[in-house]
């Protein structure tokens, strides 16, 4: 019997984990802009001939304040 209780608790906590992940993703604004992320992933990070490598390494890591 106690095994079922254990499983129950386990399943609810896994579900709760997903709920937490969902709430976090909404809160962090991941659904605010649904157009640019899928486009952004397609751009190649071609290092240009004139700019230094230093500038390319600091790009796009800062999120909104």
């Amino acid at each position, binding site marked *: 019997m106690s095994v079922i209780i254990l499983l129950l608790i386990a*399943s609810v906590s896994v579900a709760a984990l997903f*709920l937490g992940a969902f709430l976090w993703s909404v809160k962090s604004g991941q659904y605010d802009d649904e157009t640019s992320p899928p486009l952004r992933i397609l751009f190649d990070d071609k290092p240009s001939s004139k700019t230094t490598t230093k500038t390319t390494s600091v790009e796009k890591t800062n999120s909104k304040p």
Partner: protein
Amino acid sequence: MDLSSHTTVKCYHCGDECITEQIQLAGKTFCCQGCKTVYQVLNQSDLCDYYELNQNPGTSQRITVRQDKFSFLDDDKIQQQLISFRNDEQTHVTFYLPQIHCSSCLWLLENLHRLNAAVVSSRVNFTSKEVAIVFNHRATSLRSIAELLTSIGYEPYISLQNLQQAKPRIQRSLIYQLGVAGFCFANIMLMSFPEYLGLDGIEKEMQSTFRYFNLILSLPVLLYSSLPFYQSAWGSLKHNFLNIDAPIALAIIMTFGRSLYEVLTNTGGGYFDSMSGIVFFMLVGRVLQEKTYQQLSFERDYTSYFPIAVTVLKNEEEIPTALPDIKVGDTILLHNEELIPVDGLLTRGKALIDYSFVTGESIPVLKEMGELLYAGGKQTGGNIELLVMKEVAQSYLTSLWNKDEKQKPQQVSFVNTLSRYFTWIVFALAAAGALYWSFYDGGRAWNVVTTILIVACPCALLLSNSFTNGNVLRILGNNKFYLRNAQAIEEMANADHIVFDKTGTLTTTEEQDIRYSGKHLSTELTGQIAALAAQSTHPLSKLLAKQAAHYGKYNVQQFHELTGKGISGIVDQQIIAIGSAEFVTGRVTRQINGSSVYVSVDGELMGFYTIRNHYRPAIFKQILQLKKNYGISILSGDNESERSILQKELGDDVQLHFYQKPEDKLRYIKRLQENGHKVIMIGDGLNDAGALKQSDAGIAVTESTNNFTPASDGILEADKLRRLSSYLLFTKANKKVVIASFVLSILYNIVGLSFALQGILSPLVAAILMPSSSISIILLTFGASSLYARRLHLN
């Protein structure tokens, strides 16, 4: 005129046709210097991938931006209000760039650091067309960032609105509540299975464990996810009014109370599953209905049109000043293409004011020194100086916005009326049931009353309403007709009179009809006239130049322009003069037919061009179609020159009114409403703003949703105006679908109530009945509204 024989060259940068000039650079053709400069800037920094991601991704640079336009960004006070964060090193700022439209834009704007090393990062939000830039303010300034963006063709749009209010935060609580309700609902369903399927005697112990689990899981639904219903119910009760949420809130609390009692006394499993399921579905419906079009704004007022700062002249110095700080008596300097922000006297320069935004009159007006200029006009031509007569908040246009601040009376939706009757009937039934059972079997009376209230909860009504509305809004949105909320659907469906604005709504500002009458002009001569016209920046000259630009190239000598009157010059040894009748012929004549441009060659009058607004395709057919079911009025700020054409096309029963000032339009709508009409107003500019607000459903027409539209209940893309009658039919269908699904839910209720009144409704039946009725109603509303859409050929 024959256009087909002519092949056009497209600008490599913006994709526009190269009409007035063609600039060659590195094997590419550009339509203007501006486009070429952008290409050079990008080429220097090796950013030409911009052109490889999309064809002609740029925006036209033909209107050049003044050099020190952004000098106001050096002002600390203005900076403070624009930036969102600043520390010792970095400044964070968000700019609104209406030009963002494709993946090239995204790519270029996120590679800003390659153009200016002081930019730490830039990130685009495509939906809201914003770019968030982090830069090192020791190495660069806010102004140079704005100028950098301008130099690559993305001029930031900074308006007075940026100063005055913070952006409203996106409402996310409804989504959280939905997530929590979904989580609880799914788990409660899972744990209710043993209850439905029946357990063996030995497993009774398990049964109560499951029940307590359900009880715990239902608490977040009761205490958190249902909050919107409690709030709305409480709000309506405070105003002595019973809205649809009141019985729902009651049902939620009742269901929970009854279930709690059953679990604690170990008499049953309760209805936690139904309760959380209903809350979940209702929240889904509500989210659907409240899905807003983020990139559109339905609440614009004058502040989003006005600039943030203008140049004030003090002791021969040009000082950029924030608009709210401008005082009466200041002298302000306005440049070409700038909006007049305050009422003032013209003290220097010739003003050629484009008042199309305020009055609907599409041809610029010439103002002499000493004349009063009203805010809202746009200067086209050279610099002018104005003596400020009224502060921004008191200007003519601003007061027009602020007038009638009072809200539209909140219309009571027919769903609320329905639900009120429904609620009273349910209460009466519950009372009757309680009375009956208290005579026969006092113990069951309580059970019967709660079951009646649980089963008869008008959830189905709310569900059908919000799901239908949500689906209708979605379908209309797919068809480029964006409504602000569900209320607007009902207002549109109830309307019986449609008022159109003429200029910009029935006609398009993108195209003009040019007709020539007079002596025959050879192709050569037409080309020569166009070449002369190309020298001038006057809108009418530009039009002339555009329509005959491909008739060859000619050299113009001794070009002369008399602002607001006309131009002259020598082309191939002929003196050509074009302009107003007075300028060309020397005589003053009354012009009535739109705007005429007279032409003379070597002093001999040849004839005149008439320039008229171009009516949108199929617009007359559409109005004739609408005329069958609606009263139609057309209001125009323009002169009467179009009356005969409109009357001929549309018939005598269409009411036409010309010379309408913004207040006249507003008053006209008011008068219609006083006569008991429900009015839809369809307009485009600031001059329609008052009327749009006054009407029951105000719809703003726009060439592209990137443009600014005045406050309205809906935004319609201009080329869909000819589908208006289908859209109106569709909003009517909305009501039919809601009523049909309501009938279905009453059928469910009769079945459920007949069990409940007899006191024999088992938890299993209730558990099956309630979700299945909800789901079937959702399917019905979605199916029926989509079917209607297909019948009306909407996507």
